[in-house]
């Protein structure tokens, strides 16, 4: 076990580029330097080592070590037979437990789906496995991806590898922690309001929410369909680009999927940032930042902006006022869609069922017992927002705010190629600290705009606070602007302390 504690009692893994990156592993396995089985066993042993040392970060809902080992052996046999094993040959991966996996329980960390085994694979799972990746397990999340700390899980909270007394962020906390702890070099999460980028920041890894429609949602259990996007967690920007090149591009099973291939991010990764115009979002940075931003977070963002300027980018501060209104719009639109998306969990066909005197009573009892508090809160909020008489004031108005926001970002992007902000207003916070839902919701202020606009954003680790807790910086790009986004992220990665 190669753990290098980075803070008191930490269990974060310091990656070795050859052994711990997806590209490094795939290159070695493809070249026959390492077997897929050997790689998989090594990573599985890290999981076991933690468990044996009584370090339970509660990352996995389900470990698929046996199936993974069998898949690794099958891959090795294919390589021996001269087959092309794929671009992610032998790369162990973890999947957020809201991604459907044929034959493997998929729960959304909810009691209501406990025991449900999908008869099909999500498109991203098919594509990853088709490229030779090997699934280590399904990771914990805030129930149905509703939350920012992974504390809203029916199976207990996931702990931050950098400090097990702190949250990993959420909702994809399990997937972020899986990479940070060195269990896998690549995991997938879903991002509806920051659920990839915020935990990436809090766990000190790279996390990407690509443009809406650039990665198929088929097989992603919906939270809010117009906002949900799947994306990767990795140690490096290059790995994130590689994984998106594999999972991205058109899928006929998702009507909202883009009609083209994923932008050529790998080809332009090393193009540098000279001449790129970067706007630092005023509302989220420096002295003009809203209340509630930790000074060290603001300082790291300023440092990142300075570093980019030093590397040749044209950096300026720019105001994007609708950023703030986005939060309110988000907390209308996302629950509204969720209230409809989560209606199907009624106890009739699958999942948790309680007895009732009639069908309606059975449905109500099953939902009452099966859903956790936060999920119920959002279903009620969303139901209310869509109700006759309130529709226009809530859902309708939120959609209009969204339209205004998209226009405002378009205007800003007329003068800038990219935008910059912190990923999260704060570093990883102690478990149980943010018990008030409103405090927790405010934590998403930096990440929500990209979901409402459908635009891509990435969180790149950029140093730590005094206590050694990771801080992430977010780069945002216009719709489909992944090439510039990755160029800048790759440059920032090299500039990070």
């Amino acid at each position, binding site marked *: 076990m190669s753990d290098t504690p980075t803070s008191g009692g930490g269990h974060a893994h310091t990656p070795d580029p050859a052994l711990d990156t997806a590209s490094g592993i795939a290159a070695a396995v493809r070249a026959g330097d390492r077997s897929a089985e050997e790689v998989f066993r090594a990573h599985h042993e890290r999981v076991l080592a933690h468990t044996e040392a009584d370090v339970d970060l509660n990352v996995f809902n389900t470990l698929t070590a046996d199936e993974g080992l069998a898949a690794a052996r099958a891959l090795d046999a294919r390589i021996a037979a001269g087959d092309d094993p794929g671009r992610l040959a032998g790369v162990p991966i973890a999947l957020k437990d*809201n*991604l*459907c996996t044929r034959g493997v329980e*998929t729960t*959304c960390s909810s009691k209501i*789906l406990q025991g*449900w085994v*999908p*008869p*099909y694979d*999500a498109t991203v799972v098919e594509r990853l496995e088709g490229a030779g990746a090997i699934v280590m397990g399904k990771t914990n999340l805030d129930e149905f991806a509703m939350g920012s700390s992974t504390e809203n899980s029916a199976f207990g909270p996931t702990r931050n590898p950098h400090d097990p007394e702190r949250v990993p962020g959420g909702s994809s906390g399990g997937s972020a922690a899986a990479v940070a702890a060195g269990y896998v070099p690549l995991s997938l999460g879903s991002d509806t309001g920051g659920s990839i980028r915020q935990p990436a920041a809090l766990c000190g890894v790279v996390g990407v929410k690509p443009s809406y429609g650039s990665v198929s*949602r*088929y*097989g*992603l*259990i*919906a939270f*809010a*369909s*117009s906002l949900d996007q799947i994306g990767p967690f990795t140690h490096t920007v290059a790995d994130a680009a590689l994984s998106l090149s594999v999972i991205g591009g058109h899928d*006929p*099973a*998702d*009507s*909202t999927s883009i009609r083209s291939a994923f932008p050529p991010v790998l080809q332009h990764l090393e193009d540098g940032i000279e001449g790129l115009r970067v706007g630092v979002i005023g509302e989220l940075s420096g002295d003009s930042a809203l209340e509630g931003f930790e000074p060290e977070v603001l300082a790291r963002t300023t440092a990142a902006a300075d570093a980019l300027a030093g590397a040749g980018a044209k950096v300026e501060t720019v105001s994007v006022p609708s950023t703030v209104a986005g939060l309110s719009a988000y907390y209308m639109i996302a629950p*509204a*869609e969720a*209230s*409809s998306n989560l*209606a*199907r969990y*009624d106890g*009739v*066909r*699958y999942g948790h069922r309680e007895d009732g005197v*009639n*069908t*309606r009573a059975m*449905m109500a009892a099953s939902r009452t017992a099966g859903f956790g508090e936060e999920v119920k809160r959002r279903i009620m909020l969303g*139901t209310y927002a*869509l*109700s*006759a008489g309130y*529709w226009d004031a809530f*859902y309708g108005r939120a959609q209009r705010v969204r339209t205004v926001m998209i226009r405002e970002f378009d205007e800003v992007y007329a003068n800038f190629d990219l935008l910059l902000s912190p990923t999260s207003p704060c570093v990883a916070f102690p478990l149980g600290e943010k018990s008030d839902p409103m405090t927790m919701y405010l934590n998403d202020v930096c990440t929500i705009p990209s979901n409402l606009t459908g635009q891509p954003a990435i969180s790149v680790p950029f140093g730590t606070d005094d206590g050694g807790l990771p801080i992430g910086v977010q780069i945002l790009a216009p719709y489909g602007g992944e090439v510039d986004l990755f160029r800048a992220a790759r440059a920032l990665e090299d500039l990070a302390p």
Partner: protein
Amino acid sequence: MSAPVSTVVTGDATSLGYDPSTVGRSDHAEDGQVLPGDWEIVVGLEVHAELATETKMFSPARNHFGGEPNTHVHPVCLGLPGTLPVVNGKAVELSAKIGLALNCTVQRCIFARKNYFYPDMPKDYQISQYEEPLNVDGFLSLPSGSTVRIERAHMEEDTGKSTHMGESGRIHDAGYSLVDYNRAGVPLIEIVSHPDLRGPEQAKEYVEELRAILVAIGASDGKMEEGSLRVDANVSIRPAGSDELRTRCEVKNVNSLRSLGRAIAHEAKRHLALYEAGERPMQETRHWDEEGGKTHPGRSKEEAEDYRYFPDPDLVPIEPSPEWIEELRASLPVLPQQRRAALVAAGADAKAADLALDRGLDGLALAAVDAGADAERVFTHVANNLAVDGAESLDAGHFADLVKLESDGSLSATQAKQVLAEMVSSGKAPADIAADLGFEAMDTSELATMLDAIIADHPDEWQRFCEGEGKLQGVFVGQMMKATKGQADGKVVNQLLMERKNSA
């Protein structure tokens, strides 16, 4: 679901495509007799038709009636977590064709979710269209002359079927329920009329005409008994001549045209009784009870659903191009209304035209008439002798030839009927069949010789016939038929008989 609408019609016939004075007109005497003369019935219909596609509306599962429960299913139409809908292009095409046949504007449209909990609906919401449906603002001209305006015709998905295992077969006191999702996700079009119908008979006429259009387009099999065509009736009544729209009740569970008529009449009378008692009907959904011959309330008001419609974020708008719409318009078959008009123009009366349409023999009949066959004989055969399987594949040229043989006296009516039956089963030409059957046309002079012999054998009868005892004509014709074993053409015999009488 239909928005309140005004019955006031503005505009002129040329811009509307129909004569406004034909809207809301009552054409059926029976309809006027359901209520006392100072009241009139106001009906708007919502017709759901299952579209005849290979696969379901948003899922690759097969669209097929029946089958073992839960065998025509797929993760998508079962609404399994993580699945996403993809629109069936064929369903959109058929829906747009229906819209064009109903004179609708086919427009950019979006899908919406209609949210309510029900066990036979896998997602607990139905994907339908609410704002911005595919087809709007059309009309249907009824054979009897009136016009029914179409508010909209939108696409949606069907639900599954619940079987409630309990004494009443109703969900309230079921011990348990079984659900079959074979039908879940089957493509539907919902055709919503304005409240332009004035009674049970007109409502039935509308549904029959609509059904004929759906079948003609190949969009639906239109089978009410299998549930592929379902009708909900919004019924209200008002003082005759008034323009007001009073509180309506939506009557569901109407499974045949006959039930539709009965349900509307019953519901109208129920409203009348309420008004006469100084009460008012409540706006509600009511179920037709076929055995009891009455409607009873469905969901109570407290349980009234708020469907919380919102645009389905899993689907993108459909934007029909003008070129595509014109392509579809050009591909439409000749519709029943036009076919009926063509039949009448060719010499059919209304009844014969309907029979020809019902039997799908209008094309055959028209082709035969075109080929020079006598129209009256053609429609007589269609009405009386062609209600058989295979008639629709009869060769029109052969059919015309048969009628000509009959007209020129080569075949008697009895012989022609026999030959026609053989034509349907063998596909052979009528002359060949007649020859095979020995139906040689008898030479007129040969017949004249035979007739003279018979006259000579019956001098008394001949005397009385010539003196005006007309009924004796039958005796001579009968003798001729007997002598020729039925092969003589009755017309020729009669003609000869008259010639002999006139020269006697």
